[in-house]
């Protein structure tokens, strides 16, 4: 085994956004939620809205490294949540605790490259930022009955005493998985994988049918 040396590492960051000649398509593009929103029901117990085409960045770093924590706060404008299962947000930036050394950051799609570049500039040492925007999307469920749809789909305890606003867990969800965050008293945000998005879209329609599903564009 060789000695581990800390050397300056050059990381090239590629802007993954195509130019205007290529249309950006979210994982739920084919569902055409905009058309359903126009023609579908306007009132119901559950409202579903896709937060499409956000910039998703995964950050891996040492939560005990004060310099890295400071750098992350400088880039994001908000301190990393180091308490397990919590999230932090400021403006259009949301940071979710995923694991003791991993966070999922979402920013507006057009800002992802800028934030990624800023991490490479500000942060030193052993860390990793990866743009995973193409691999997942966010679905927001809100309304009085949104919690029942979550209860049908996942074994997590979402009673407000156990699952307050801001809490985030990664769990199984309808035989797939999701990063579930309570973004409001009656509002849940699911980060879902691209390859499971159609299945979950069908599942969510079915699971919320009895409460009345409203699609928001």
């Amino acid at each position: 085994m060789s000695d581990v040396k800390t050397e300056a590492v050059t990381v090239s960051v590629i802007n993954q956004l195509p130019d205007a000649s290529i249309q950006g398509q979210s994982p739920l593009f084919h569902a055409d939620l905009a058309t359903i929103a126009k023609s579908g029901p306007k009132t119901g117990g559950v409202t579903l809205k896709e937060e499409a085409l956000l910039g998703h960045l995964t950050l891996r770093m040492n939560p005990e490294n004060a310099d890295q924590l400071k750098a992350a706060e400088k880039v994001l404008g908000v301190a990393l949540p180091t308490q397990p299962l919590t999230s932090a947000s400021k403006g259009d930036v949301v940071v979710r605790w995923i694991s003791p050394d991993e966070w999922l950051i979402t920013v507006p799609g057009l800002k992802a490259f800028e934030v990624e570049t800023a991490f490479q500039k500000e942060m030193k040492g052993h860390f990793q930022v990866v743009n995973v925007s193409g691999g997942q999307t966010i679905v927001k469920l809100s309304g009085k009955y949104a919690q029942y749809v979550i209860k049908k789909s996942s074994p997590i305890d979402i009673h407000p005493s156990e699952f307050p606003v801001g809490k985030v867990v990664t769990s199984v969800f309808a035989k797939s998985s999701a990063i579930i965050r309570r973004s409001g008293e009656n509002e849940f945000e699911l980060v879902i994988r691209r390859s499971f998005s159609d299945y979950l879209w069908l599942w969510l329609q079915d699971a919320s049918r009895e409460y009345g599903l409203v699609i928001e564009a």
Partner: protein
Amino acid sequence: MFLIYCPHCGEYREEEEFQNRGQAHIARPLDPDSCTDEEWGNYMFFRKNPKGLHHELWVHAAGCRKFFNVTRNTATYEIKEVYKIGEQPKVVA
């Protein structure tokens, strides 16, 4: 519901989120080249299979994806303790 405590998430979660990865505290020989076939074979293939207390490696596969150790009674399924990698069990047979 069978709940398991994840020491990284700091809460009990449903068993469905976890996977058992077998016997814990198996140290890889520091110098595999100097092992006899028997030593290497024991490291690679031979595992305890107790009825009763067993120290196991578990992973919070659908959650934080971190590994940790569990002391479990294989006859009753009762979990006696959960402890992080690098720590030693307090409950021993």
